[in-house]
């Protein structure tokens, strides 16, 4: 557990999960000194995480802050320059472990020529999901069950997003990474997405949702503010507001950013 900002006035004692009940279950998602460099750029600059299961974590930060790279490291899609990533106790990358992980990418990641059903069936087969009722169930949930034979090409942007989500959830994963799932999704559907995320977490799944929209942050159980490959702060939305001394998460984010910058400045 890390607070990336040791110079913060709140001090190490305020480390969020330390103030909440200590986790009983082993962390669902873990990172130790995780680092990824692209040439001179530190996309992920030594991140430590230990996220207990069954909650929704919001990964918040501006574009280019390292959210996607962090998710790719945690899912094993990118290889870390150094450090370690574990999901459900298994070191990533692990192909077998991917059967327990869902990943909704920023791009839709579906085949435009294939129908809704063909797309879903394809990913279901790769994940080893053969239960047809489950597959229909997930399509009902994203309200695509009446468009089984529509080619993805002819779906609206929001429908494609929904199909993409269905493909990521078809195998009932225990840990779900969602990279900006609500981009291009209309407000009504966005509400539905979040309702569904809460249902999944109530069923025991761990969700890590990235976003650069702060108004989604309040729907998460816990937030990680990310900037320049660092975790600026971590805690529940309420905690972060309090520590930021503002009732606006955006302002809190900016404040944590500024504090880190100062910290780096004084360190020099």
């Amino acid at each position, binding site marked *: 557990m890390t607070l990336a900002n040791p110079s913060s006035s709140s001090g190490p004692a305020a480390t969020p999960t330390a103030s909440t009940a200590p986790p009983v279950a082993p962390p669902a998602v873990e990172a130790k000194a995780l680092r990824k460099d692209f040439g001179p750029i530190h996309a992920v600059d030594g991140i430590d995480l230990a996220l207990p299961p069954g909650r929704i974590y919001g990964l918040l930060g501006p574009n280019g802050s390292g959210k996607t790279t962090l998710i790719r490291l945690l899912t094993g899609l990118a290889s870390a320059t150094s450090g370690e990533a574990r999901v459900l106790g298994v070191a990533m990358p692990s192909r077998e472990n991917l*059967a327990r992980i869902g*990943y909704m990418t920023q791009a839709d990641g579906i085949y435009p020529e294939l129908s809704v059903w*063909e797309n879903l069936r394809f990913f279901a087969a790769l994940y080893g999901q053969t239960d047809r009722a489950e597959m229909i169930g997930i399509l009902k949930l994203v309200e695509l069950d009446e468009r089984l034979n529509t080619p993805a090409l002819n779906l609206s942007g929001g429908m494609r997003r929904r199909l993409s989500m269905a493909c990521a959830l078809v195998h009932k994963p225990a840990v779900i990474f969602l990279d900006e799932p609500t981009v291009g999704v209309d407000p009504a559907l966005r509400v539905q997405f979040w309702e569904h995320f809460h249902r999944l977490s109530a069923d025991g799944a761990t969700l890590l949702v990235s976003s650069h929209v702060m108004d989604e942050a309040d729907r998460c159980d816990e937030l990680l503010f990310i900037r320049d490959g660092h975790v600026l702060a971590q805690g529940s939305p309420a905690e972060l507001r309090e520590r930021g001394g503002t009732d606006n998460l955006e302002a809190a984010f900016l404040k944590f950013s500024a504090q880190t910058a100062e910290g780096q400045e004084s360190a020099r």
Partner: protein
Amino acid sequence: MNARRVSAVFVRIVAQFRRDKRTLALLFVAPLAIIALLGWVLTSSSATNVRLAVVNESSQQSVGQAVATRIEAALSGQPTVILDRSITDDASARKALEDKTVDMVVIVPANFDANNRRIEILTLGLNPTAEFSSLSVVQKALVDELAAQAGAVMPTIDRATVYGSPNATELDTLAPVVVGFFVYFFVFILTGISFLRERIGGTLERLLATPVSRAEIVLGYSLGFGFFATLQIAVVLAFVIGRVSVPALGPIPEFGIGLGVQMTGNPLIAYLLVLVLGLGAVSLGIFLSTFARTEFQILQFIPIVIVPQGLLGGFFWPIDQLPDLLQPVARILPVTYAIDGLRQVMIAGADLSSSQVLLDLGVLAAIAAVFGVLAAATIRREVA
């Protein structure tokens, strides 16, 4: 290796292309159209007449004229020669060549005499191949004339070949080449572009977030494109080997569909050769898609990957006649082995007991395996 995941990739590729009618048409109609065109050109190019003029420029007028007259006489006996007697000097002959009213002029030059028995043959020089074939007409006329003067009877030559028929046309030897080449070309392009679309469309990222392995992806792709290659090979081979005659109807004269090229050996072995070649092309397409960022860049591989195989693989020249430095290059190209194997099977009737065919199959399989490993190795190359 999980059979269900491999079959999921296979089924997906078939489903994708089933929807893409235009690409399907390209797979089946395009090779047939091109092969039909080739067959038409190669079989119906009738020997055209050669329009000739004989000009005497000799300073020894009478000697030159005597020679010119004899050449004219010899030429007029040739069935494909049309003599133009209105041209009598070098200048008007050159003009006639430029105006394309004659194809060739035989000139008895100014310095022609009993000691300098050289005549000149003048052509336009724009189309060496056609002019060379006209040249043989003149040579034949002169030989005939000489033989007649000597009272000798020239023997007629009967050609025989160990394999196939001496009447085998260019088409018969080109057909195997065309079959192999098309399959290679189309499979390479389609796989390259399909896989590139996986890379840039974000679906590869998505695939790699599932438990599917790289080997399973390559195998699924090979099965999927192997399936379409199978259909394509069947259609192309049937078209090349078979021939159906369509009777004349109204203004349309009788014509044939299919080339009716000889197939001495077992078509299944020919098919096997092309299939193994095609599987290598699948892996090559996946491998090279790593080095392309757009579909356009896949097309840029055509001059690098496809054209050299066409030039060196035995399409135009036998490998043995290539320059020394190029021979080893030709011997690492898969198309070379496919063409050799196909010729062995189609013309020489070789079967799987032939060490040559086994060698060709073995090399093709080895090339496919090497590129299969390379393809699998590049799949996880980070997109970043």
